[in-house]
């Protein structure tokens, strides 16, 4: 196995996971597909670019700012748009449309901002990449270390919060049955705010890392929209951890799959690699509509053990 391909696959999957987690989390807790999520990613990328352009230093320094801006935008969206609409009993489809409206607003602001940076300060804000500022530690790139580490950190933190804290259990209860949860004394609004905070924050982290990984431009986050939804659907929206599975599955199949295909069909096929997530999504929808997260791995392992014992 080619190490550099594995390396690229891990970075890609980690970035996908960081980008997609928030979408799934919000869907699970608030029952809304937040299309505006991708604009948070773009915004965070621009925040890092701004600070980098003015103050220099390693872009990784500004990661917390990315988290903050992502969380901030998400909470604004929830409080000003989603919550009022929910109180009016809007359908999940209408709320989806409202997130599109918010996407347009945030994207418009980013467009204006990048124009401003370009025209007034002459920063190359219409198209930039900061990977040249990356560092190397024991043979690993900063982006590899940060993306993978943050993914693991978020996964672990989430697990700890959801399993061992009262609030975490309350969140899972709200997902199970929001009405029962509220008559039990759980303030669903706070649960939702927390969910959007985390979702936006992770989008912010992904966005802050983005310039170290790929070319950035206004609307760069939106180019990942279809892939993010593919990851969410493949991972499934029943289980909170499904996205992480989905992102690695899609990431690895895409990178290794297209590599394998290029051996058969030549290198011209490489550009079509972004079709692979879509294809996987379609397959999953046809055969496993609830996604990967629903698969009861314990049951499978128990069944395998039973079969071995019979022999």
């Amino acid at each position, binding site marked *: 196995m080619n190490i550099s391909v594995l390396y690229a696959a891990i970075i890609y999957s980690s970035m996908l996971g960081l980008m997609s987690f928030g979408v799934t989390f919000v869907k699970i807790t608030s029952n809304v597909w937040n299309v505006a999520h991708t604009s948070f990613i773009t915004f965070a990328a621009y925040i890092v670019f701004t600070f980098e352009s003015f103050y220099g230093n390693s872009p990784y320094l500004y990661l917390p700012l990315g988290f903050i801006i992502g969380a901030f935008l998400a909470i604004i969206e929830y409080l000003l748009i989603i919550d009022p609409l929910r109180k009016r*009993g809007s359908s999940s489809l209408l709320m989806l449309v409202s997130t599109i409206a918010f996407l347009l607003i945030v994207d418009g602001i980013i467009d204006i901002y990048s124009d401003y940076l370009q025209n007034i300060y002459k920063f190359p804000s219409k198209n930039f990449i900061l990977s040249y500022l990356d560092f190397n530690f024991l043979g690993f790139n900063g982006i590899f270390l940060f993306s993978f580490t943050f993914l693991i950190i978020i996964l672990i933190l989430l697990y700890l919060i959801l399993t061992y804290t*009262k609030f975490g*259990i*309350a969140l*899972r*209860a709200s*997902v*199970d*049955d929001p*009405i*029962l*949860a*509220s*008559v*039990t*004394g*759980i*303030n*669903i609004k706070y649960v939702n705010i927390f969910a959007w905070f985390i979702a936006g924050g992770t989008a912010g982290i992904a966005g802050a890392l983005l310039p170290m990984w790929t070319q950035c431009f206004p609307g760069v986050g939106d180019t990942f929209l279809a892939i993010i939804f593919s990851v969410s659907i493949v991972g499934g929206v029943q289980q909170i951890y499904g996205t992480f599975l989905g992102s690695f599955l899609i990431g690895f199949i895409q990178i290794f799959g297209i590599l394998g295909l290029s051996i058969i069909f030549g290198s011209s096929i490489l550009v079509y690699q972004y079709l692979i997530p879509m294809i996987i999504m379609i397959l999953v929808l046809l055969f496993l509509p609830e996604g990967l997260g629903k698969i009861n791995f314990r049951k499978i392992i128990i069944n395998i053990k039973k079969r071995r014992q019979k022999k």
Partner: protein
Amino acid sequence: MLAVSNLNSGYEKVHILYDINIQCNSSEIVSIIGPNGSGKTTLLKTIVGLTNIYSGSILFNNIKINNIPSYKIAKIGISYLPQGNNIFPSLSVYENLRIGCYLCNSKDLKETINEIFSIFPILREYLAKKASMLSGGERQMLGIAMNLLRKPKLLMLDEPLAGLSPLIAKNILNKLVEIKDKLKIGIIIVEQNISKVLEISDRIYLLASGKIVFSGKNNELLENKDMVKLYMGLLSGGKNQ
């Protein structure tokens, strides 16, 4: 303790309850009975803030609780066990109890939960089990346990005996009387079938088509020939249904 006056409520524009007047005091078991679709569940849901109130008032210890969100109503001491979805299926039994005790003082947590085991010992054995794996009767017990953990002042149960064998049902009813006496709480039970709760009720309200058609003590109901005729099916323990 609880006083509902001239209450009109429903879901959005669908008017379900008309001019409801109900009371429940501490150390009292009140039963609300009536045929299917009469609005019994809506009444409980209205009290906990899950419906639209058109007019009237709900007073709890002389505080109007009309437009307070559900989670706040739980905080002031009203506990509600819905019909059907009354536990969290993907959480373990322990986690369910933990949520039942969401508003508890964290110091008292262990003590409180141990108290519950004295009433429902079987739950202790199932602590790690996922709630979806429990049988119907066990779920009911868990649901009731979750409500008791909150040490409510008013306990509202929507068809708590549904799907339970007569033995377990009797067991639970006895426990309810025990709790009423010990903890001095008020209990409102909604049941379709009066025969089950007749004995233990202090007062009964008969609800039909969203209106109260009878209120009084249990023996008064049986003596009222018209009521008995109209709602014969309910009184005979469902033999005619």
